[in-house]
């Protein structure tokens, strides 16, 4: 049984999905301008990553592997995720109109988020147990949220600054991210 705490710390800090593994970048640069939307997106992603990890683990270990059809992994995983995201969207729409409107277009974007599909693959690759996969998925999501919150805090301030013209917008965002990534490099070797 793998060490769950070490796994969580690894996913949140040492192997931060955005700053170290480069998974989930599109929303990172797209959503991170305001802290509220960053928080909402992050929480939604954590939730989806958790259930997607569970669902994909079950699918792989109970169906794909025993039947020797592992090559269907890519197709089945992405379809499960697409399906789960639709479900989550319906659920949120029904129970919180406000949240639904706040998240708007970002919800269906979770389907194409490399981080969600990525964590599903990683759980299998690392041979995690069922609980391990769920912990892994949720921790990865927490790491994603952490990076997103840090970034939005910085970007809110950046809006008020004088940035040289060629750097305005995406370029400076990348450079900020590279500095954050540099900081997170310090976690390497911690586990």
């Amino acid at each position, binding site marked *: 049984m793998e060490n769950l705490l070490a796994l969580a710390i690894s996913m949140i800090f040492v192997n931060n999905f955005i700053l170290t593994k480069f998974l989930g970048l599109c929303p990172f640069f797209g959503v991170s301008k305001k802290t509220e939307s960053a928080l909402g997106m992050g929480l939604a992603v954590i939730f989806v990553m958790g259930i997607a990890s569970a669902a994909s683990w079950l699918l792989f270990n109970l169906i794909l592997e025993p039947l020797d059809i592992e*090559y*269907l992994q890519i*197709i089945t995983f992405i379809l499960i995720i697409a399906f789960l995201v639709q479900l989550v969207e319906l659920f949120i729409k029904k129970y919180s109109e406000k949240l639904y409107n706040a998240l708007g277009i970002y919800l269906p974007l979770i389907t194409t988020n490399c981080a969600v599909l990525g964590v599903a693959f990683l759980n299998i690759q690392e041979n995690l147990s069922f609980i391990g996969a769920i912990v892994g998925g949720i921790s990865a999501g927490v790491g994603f949220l952490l990076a997103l919150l840090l970034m939005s805090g910085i970007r809110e301030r950046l809006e008020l600054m004088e940035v040289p013209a060629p750097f305005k917008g995406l370029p400076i965002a990348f450079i900020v991210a590279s500095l954050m990534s540099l900081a997170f490099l310090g976690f*390497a*070797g911690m586990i």
Partner: protein
Amino acid sequence: MSKTKSTIVLTLVCIITAALLAGTYMLTKDKIASQSENALTESLKEIIPDADKFIEETSGDTSYFIAIKDNIEAGYATTGEAQGYGGIIKTLVGVDLEGNILGVRILEQSETPGLGDKAKNPGFYNQFNNQKKNSIRLSKEGGSIDAITGATITSRAVIASVNDALATLSDAVGIQQVGEQ
């Protein structure tokens, strides 16, 4: 567009894609299996070149190889693992009947490119040739292995991985090669 037409098209797409996938899988699966076998066999042959063949044995939950030359046992080999800087480092270690290391090969590593991944260069792993267990420490700790510049963690991990393999062999065939110097 009617619901039946949707369903028909969807089913058709699923059938075609499933057929394509199953077909490709059939085409490639033997080659894929032999790829991983090849890597191991190649490395075994490199470490113990004059062996006629290798026989795989299991000991507990690990397996190891016996190198046969002229119908007698000439050496042993097995894999060892240790946590490196960027992931697990897996090495293949071959020893002769006295426990002298015949050679070490890096099978898997995900160390930093340009730094730790220099472990995959012969310049590094050939340092293990003709060593015994006690002398495979970093030179700065009194051993005979020069660490990779700037990649001490990786170097240590390779040593740990080799020790892991030696321990397996020690359990399996009782090689007392602790090289009491």
